[in-house]
């Protein structure tokens, strides 16, 4: 690999303070050898043009800030290798959410759906003196569920969420719903299922599986949604 290289970008730009409408900006940047991830390149770009706006924080794929649409696919800038990407690298905001500025989107609807599934443990027994016991096998049921970083890559890649963001909980919210349904310490199973028993909230998932394809943490919301549907069926019979 050469030590310095120039990378071409096409970036979605929109500043409501001065732009009538969004446009795609062609811009290139020279990278240092240590620049490995797309986020490194965006930080270099920002040093060149400080008006380029994007969210970022941990730069190691655990805070979920820098989700964006990269060459047509949702992902985290900090986990995406620059050299894996075809140029010009096309950067757009996450699809389906209102754009505030550049690649910064308004995530209100996304979090509203997350909050709608009561994303907290419900257990109304008096708290014991020590920890509640849970077998390693029961704990293992939470693997692949609790690791979600709420980056919204999945929900904003889901056509069902694009059409009905106000009615369909979306893959991230449903993954969280199943995380609590699967927790042996939680007592609100039927309340949680009631909350999803609706033509839209759960059943708008048509197993398109875009969510699985884009999840930067390798999680599988479709499988979790399938398990919720199974629970629905089982309690109906």
């Amino acid at each position: 690999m050469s030590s310095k290289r120039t990378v071409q970008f096409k970036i979605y730009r929109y500043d409501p303070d001065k732009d009538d409408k969004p446009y795609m900006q062609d811009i290139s940047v020279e990278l240092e050898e240590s620049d490995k991830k797309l986020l490194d390149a965006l930080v270099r770009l920002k040093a060149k043009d400080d008006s380029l706006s994007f969210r970022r924080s941990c730069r190691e794929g655990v805070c979920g800030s820098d989700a964006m649409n990269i060459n047509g696919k949702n992902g985290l800038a900090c986990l995406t290798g620059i050299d894996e990407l075809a140029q010009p690298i096309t950067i757009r905001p996450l699809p389906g959410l209102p754009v505030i500025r550049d690649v910064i989107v308004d995530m209100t609807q996304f979090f509203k759906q997350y909050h709608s599934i009561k994303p907290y443990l419900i257990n109304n027994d008096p708290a014991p003196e020590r920890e509640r016991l849970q077998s390693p096998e029961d704990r293992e049921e939470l693997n692949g569920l609790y690791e979600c970083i709420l980056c919204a890559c999945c929900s904003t890649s889901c056509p069902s969420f694009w059409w009905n963001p106000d009615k369909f909980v979306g893959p991230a919210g449903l993954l969280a719903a199943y995380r609590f349904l699967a927790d042996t310490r939680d007592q609100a199973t039927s309340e949680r299922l009631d909350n999803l028993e609706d033509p839209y909230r759960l059943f708008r998932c048509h197993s398109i599986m875009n969510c699985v394809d884009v999840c930067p943490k390798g999680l599988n919301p479709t499988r979790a949604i399938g398990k919720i549907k199974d629970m629905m069926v089982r309690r109906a019979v």
Partner: protein
Amino acid sequence: MKVAKHTFDAVIVGAGGAGLRAALQLSEAGLKTAVLTKVFPTRSHTVAAQGGVAASLGNSTEDNWHWHMYDTVKGSDWLGDQDAIEFMVKKANEVVVELEHFGMPFDRTDNGKIYQRPFGGHSQNYGQTPVSRSCAAADRTGHAMLHALYQRNVRANTHFFVEWMAMDLIRNADGDVLGVTAMEMETGEVSIFHAKATIFATGGSGRIYYSSTNAFINTGDGVGMAARAGIPLEDMEFWQFHPTGVAGAGVLITEGVRGEGGILRNASGERFMERYAPNLKDLASRDVVSRSMVTEINEGRGCGSEKDHVLLDITHLSPENIMKRLPGIREISIQFAGVDPIKAPIPVVPTCHYQMGGIPTNYKGQVIVPKDGNPNVPVPGFYAAGECACASVHGANRLGTNSLLDLLVFGKSAGETVVADFQSGQLTLKPLPDDAADVSLARIARLEVQTNGVEVADVRLDMQRTMQKHAGVFRFADMLKEGVAKILEVAERAKHTQIKDKSKVWNTARTEALELDNLIEVAKATMISAEARKESRGAHVRDDAIDCAETPNGRDDKNWLKHTLWYSEGNRLDYKPVNLQPMSADVEPIALAKRTY
């Protein structure tokens, strides 16, 4: 500019572990509370903590709080206040069990209890053998904790102001704290948050260094705000360099890797920690391990073509165990080091990680300052917890897993103190001065009109390189002296930062310029405090401190067993005594001794 005013019982700045734990206390007690956070709560840097949270639950090996207290005092190189340390270790089981009740997905032992692993500096029987004290959720403990705390706050209907950046502390003529000014990032509007109580939980400032495990957001906002408002900063010379940051990338590799059996090796494959810490070896305290690594590298035994790092080896562990206990580390290693640790060792290097010092507080979370001859007088209305605060439980060197414990215990304690002060009627809404928002508005206005200034990114880089070069793992008298002059020069330039972006909407150039003001305060405090402390203690080790019987490891208790206080105004230094007296009669003071592992 029009300034809106919001009135609350309490305002909390920061929504990481400490802020969320405090918020829970306030929300559940029914106080009208605003939590300001510049990122969505689950994006706070607590999320990146990996290895665990300390508590002497004794689920796998015998343990008790006395041993935990001894380890923490020794780890602090006796600079920690023993009353606050006793308070913290005694509360550990309670706050960890509470988290489990909140739904935190801890790993489990075969009998269903919280899984615990060994960690650096934690021992059984006063330093004898490693103990399993770190309560863990795989290697994603911070993530699991932060989400559980956020979720519990959703349940409690906590009122968040998401993507609001706090700018300045508001004090009246008596010095009482009345709230903060803050900018809504989406609109650029400045508001006043007027409150009876203000809790700072803004986290650390690791971005003052060039190479740091810290997130972009860790810009010491609360620390900088406090310093500008006349609050002294305590023990800022003490910075933890984590032994295992990924070489080149700086991303953290948890000490839990060594807790699970990982070994550090030099170029010849030698397990060099056996020479430096015969007893605890790779699980010695972080300052000791980091110095040993740098010594190996400096003496030519580093690895790679540049001989600039060492290797962290877990290839002898079973792939199943790695996948189960260290899955996140494997991901990070593949992503950022290009190495699958199941097959090959990870290149690592000591990397700036944690600020032991901060805003001075007592164990109740009250911010304390010297006044009328008393070094510890609470500032009415002002509280702080977590990494931005200095209680002081970490002293000169923090033990791994004690940071998550710190933010739980003191987040809760600060919350409880505010609730108690509120309910007893001690907290009142004091009138705002007319100029409450002037300082913040002037800062924004300057950025609007500044011409012929300097780029934020340039000044920040100069600061980071200066700190890295002049106040690193090993410190040198002449370099520190030079560092002070340099950092003051950088600070002078930082007054003239210029931004091209003038948009009102989500202006991150402006946010970064405001953050730099905070970082600069921290950098000055660090360099000036470090230059002045003429001894080696914990993470602060200098070349001119002599290791002899009177000053073991270069530690000079006769002259330097005291906390530093740095005041921004005039870069003035003051000192106050360390509290060597525990809180209760349950335990004897841990007597001064030479620190070996």
